[in-house]
């Protein structure tokens, strides 16, 4: 399986594939990586150090700020996977690059393929190739 590279890099870790769209602002604690959205099915799980697969992004345009803060706090996912590039969330990563902080790579992959990876430990290569 191969994902499209959005922001280049490689990652290895366990996949947390969310079952429902999330707003990072109000949905993820920027200091801990905990999912805090009261109505989200994965509430209470933590995204830090996971390969985080997102079926869709909703809500606030402050998601980028939460993403940057997660990176700065060392609580970012190891990689982001989303169906289409989401300008808001990825901005947090782009700005981290400008700040010369360590970044997490990002890849595009459809929802169905994301689900199939849930819970598995995978390696994503720089070219987007996914190995289980």
């Amino acid at each position, binding site marked *: 399986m191969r994902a499209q590279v959005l922001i280049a890099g490689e990652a290895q870790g366990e996949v947390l594939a969310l079952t429902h769209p999330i707003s990072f602002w109000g949905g993820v604690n920027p200091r801990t990586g905990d999912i805090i959205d009261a109505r989200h099915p994965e509430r209470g799980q933590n995204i830090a150090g996971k390969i985080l697969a997102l079926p869709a992004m909703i809500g606030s345009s402050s998601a980028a700020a939460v993403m940057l803060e997660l990176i700065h706090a060392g609580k970012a996912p190891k990689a982001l996977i989303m169906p289409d590039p989401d*300008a808001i969330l990825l901005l*947090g990563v782009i700005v981290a690059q400008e700040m010369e902080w360590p970044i997490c790579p990002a890849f595009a992959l459809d929802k169905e393929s994301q689900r199939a990876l849930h819970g598995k430990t995978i390696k994503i290569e720089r070219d987007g190739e996914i190995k289980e």
Partner: protein
Amino acid sequence: MALQFTNEDKAILAGEKGMGAKMALSIVAETARLMGAPRLLPIASAHIDGALYHGDSGTLFAEKLVEGDAKVAVRSTLNVGALDLMGCSKQRLPPHERDMAKRMMRAYEKMGCEPSWTCSPYQAGHRPALGSDVAWGESNAVVFCNSVLGARTNRYGDFLDIACAIAGRAPDYGLHRTENRRARFVIDVSGLSETLRRADIFYPVLGTWFGLEMTNDIGVVDGLQGFPNEDNLKAFGAASASSGGVGLFHIAGVTPEAPTVDAALQGQKPERVIRVTIDMVLGALKRLSNASSESIDAIAIGSPHLSLEEMHALLTLLNDRKVIRPFFACTGRHVLRAIEADGTRAKLEALGITIVADTCVVVTPMLPEGGSVLMTNSGKFAHYATGNTGYAVQYGSLKDCVESAVKGHVIRDGGLWQ
């Protein structure tokens, strides 16, 4: 197709116009690459959502731009910060956070942004022209700007908004392009009662339903001709952009790109026509409340920030009665000045209302400690209150909020929803 840079762009990217300008254009260009934009568009204005403190990283970013001599190239208003700089209300930020939040707000002012500090900039005199390209952040401001003003913006996140303001340009993709502003769905609400369609509380509830149904798709609502006022459209958009990711909606006969349903569809057939029933609306209404207790600890209104008309409506509904629970009315300086001038502020405060300027209750710690139930008429507060403050929500109309605040427990007029 790769992005083409002008010679001036190349000079900026080489750092010849300062490191701030270089950083800003690099961020805009990298976003353009990610989103497949073929070029950068000149923009008429910006609304900056990036000055709200979420942690030290955002302050460090803003200060790095200031150190690099960055200045905004176009009119740029500021969304809320984490502090009420007008001193109307108190925030419980610890010393470090307070200091960093203030440094952040000052950094954005230093870059030439207007200290508007409101999430309703469109009611504070910032109304870009129909068809103009702008770069706006803050989900409710974005959806209002696109839908009600007909100016064109994507949902600019923190950092990209200020980067575009400094560069004076934005990536040409998404809602900047006419073909991407077409409605694909028709939402027919003509089956709902006229009484309901005239009620203020209908709009955030319908907006909540719309956001859940559309996620980020574009729909045209039919059956509201002659009903909503501007504050209703504000509430509808804000709710749709919190329950979903709506960046643009059309309302036939109401919003400028939808003189008719057909115009909003750009002459094409809709993918689906949804006839909204009262049960669908009730489902969205039910979702907005998640508290089990009928006793309430605080009331908050003003997301998006209240207009002068909404402040006056609050005073009228209070009818000289004092509230017995903390009651926060969030607004911007544009309204604060007006309610100071006409005496409304003093009257509201005498009845126990706390006016909140420059910020709001879900972005910074200010709801009473130890409380557990918040009542609100805002679809956006209802969506974010629990995650951001720990408070559970009782949802109701402005009148319900006022009556409940006077009595200290939930009082609702359910008649409207029959």
